[in-house]
């Protein structure tokens, strides 16, 4: 028997008719739907793509990413030190379909900023109203004499996680007890400012527990580094006589590498290594340069409210590739910037003006598996860049009890689970 039409069904039918009849009106009243292309599926790009869709489902979003698997850098130092497997760092993109993000499994080869279109390596062309570039970093293969892409097979950088991470781990595992490991840390700016020192700590932990006659030297192109006092206090306590840090002013800057002799060269001498980890100078990922969004530094200046390029209208840059003022190049920063950028892009497409943002960064480092330290900051736009909110932020207290270091190590683990769940889950 046919039921009389309920009020709910009536409303549904009426709605269908009304929306069809009124179609041109909302387009004018609420801003026409737009097309956004996001290049790069890391912490910045994948977050941004999803959040644009959640903020305004009328906007079409295509994420361009060549690799079917993302390999996360945070916690990859644990993989190098043999405390974690690489698969714990790896994430796929299938859940992005829940937000109806379109995936283009290819790499972006060119950007036509005038015509507003991205050309992919597979020759397809994606037109956009707004483009978000989140390409991360590229290694500057021209910046350190002797350090070529081929050299990185002998002296891994392991600064983009994946095969390089495993290569460095295998070299450490193959090294005999009593060997010398040398890490070269670059001048600022670079991805993950505390990263080289966390890596040094965890490699020192590996050596102390597995190869205690060995030695680790960090050659640094700087005189100061992130969370320095906390790291150095912990090194004194945990790895005395094992880990030596050589600052810029005491001859730490590596000026060239001699790969056949496994030697790192400074102005003050030559350091022969059994295992050499060269963390080289970096720049924004290649597509940012191709889009005309990089400046002389190799990084991308952006507006601190919308993260729109200061050089290319309608192109936004987020994450490690962008110059974000006081905000460091971290996964937490990239994810936070991505959400702000998503809101700004949606606003701009709708004809509105982005709200002034406030951003937070938190970076944990492990000095040992159960010994965590952190730096946090709060940022706001001022004088054309992101600046620290005064009175906020800072590092873990130098005199914190051991329980606080354990708690921060646990928080570090929790952070990784939560952020990767938000980005890829």
């Amino acid at each position: 028997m046919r039921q009389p039409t309920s009020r709910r069904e009536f409303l549904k039918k009426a709605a269908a008719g009304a929306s069809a009849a009124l179609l041109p009106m909302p387009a004018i009243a609420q801003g026409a739907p737009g097309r956004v292309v996001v290049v790069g599926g890391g912490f910045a790009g994948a977050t941004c793509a999803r959040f644009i869709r959640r903020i305004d489902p009328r906007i079409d979003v295509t994420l361009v990413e060549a690799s079917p698997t993302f390999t996360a850098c945070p916690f990859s130092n644990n993989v190098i030190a043999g405390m974690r497997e690489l698969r714990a760092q790896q994430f796929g993109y299938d859940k992005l379909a829940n937000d109806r993000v379109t995936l283009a499994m290819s790499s972006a080869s060119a950007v036509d900023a005038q015509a507003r279109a991205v050309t992919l390596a597979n020759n397809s062309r994606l037109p956009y109203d707004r483009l978000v570039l989140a390409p991360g970093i590229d290694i500057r293969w021209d910046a350190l004499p002797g350090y070529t892409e081929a050299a990185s097979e002998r002296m891994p950088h392991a600064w983009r996680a994946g095969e390089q991470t495993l290569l460095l781990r295998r070299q450490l595992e193959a090294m005999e007890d009593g060997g010398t490991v040398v890490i070269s840390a670059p001048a600022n700016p670079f991805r993950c400012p505390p990263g080289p020192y966390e890596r040094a700590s965890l490699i020192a932990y590996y050596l102390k527990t597995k190869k205690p006659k060995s030695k680790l030297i960090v050659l640094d192109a700087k005189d100061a580094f992130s969370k320095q006092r906390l790291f150095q206090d912990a090194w004194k306590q945990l790895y005395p006589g094992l880990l030596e840090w050589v600052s810029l002013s005491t001859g730490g800057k590596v000026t060239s590498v001699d790969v056949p002799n496994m030697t790192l060269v400074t102005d003050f001498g030559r350091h022969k290594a059994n295992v050499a980890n060269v963390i080289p100078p970096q720049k924004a990922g290649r597509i940012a340069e191709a889009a005309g969004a990089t400046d002389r530094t190799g990084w991308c200046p952006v507006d601190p409210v919308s993260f729109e390029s200061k050089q290319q209208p309608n192109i936004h840059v987020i994450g490690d590739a962008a110059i974000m003022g006081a905000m460091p190049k971290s996964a937490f920063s990239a994810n936070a910037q991505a959400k702000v950028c998503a809101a700004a892009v949606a606003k701009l497409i709708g004809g509105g003006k982005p709200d002034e943002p406030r951003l937070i960064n938190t970076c944990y480092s492990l000095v040992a598996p159960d010994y965590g330290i952190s730096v946090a900051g709060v940022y706001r736009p001022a004088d054309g860049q992101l600046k620290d909110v005064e009175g906020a932020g800072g590092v873990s207290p130098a005199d914190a009890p051991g329980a606080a270091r354990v708690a921060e190590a646990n928080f570090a683990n929790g952070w990784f689970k939560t952020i990767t769940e938000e980005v890829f889950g």
Partner: protein
Amino acid sequence: MTRTCMLTAAVLVLASIGPASAAGPADAPPGAASCSGCHPAARVADTSMSRLIGGDPATIVTAMQGFKSGQLPGTVMGRIAKGFSDDEIKAIAAWYGAQKD
């Protein structure tokens, strides 16, 4: 009557296809979007970190004020809470309180 229904229905449709409405991701107050880097949105994430989504705004405000003044011991939260005014904290707490799973 029919006209009223039609208009109501049209508004409903526009609301459902438009930008996420009041208290949705489009209306997150300054700073709120950063919190979910550590504070999980879903119950599945295996972490001791508190969930903010659907939380009681007054409880969130009390915690943030405690972190800010130093009365509530913590690790990073004291350093973060100091970056927000009382009104900003209230806005963030109200917004998280209004979020649903």
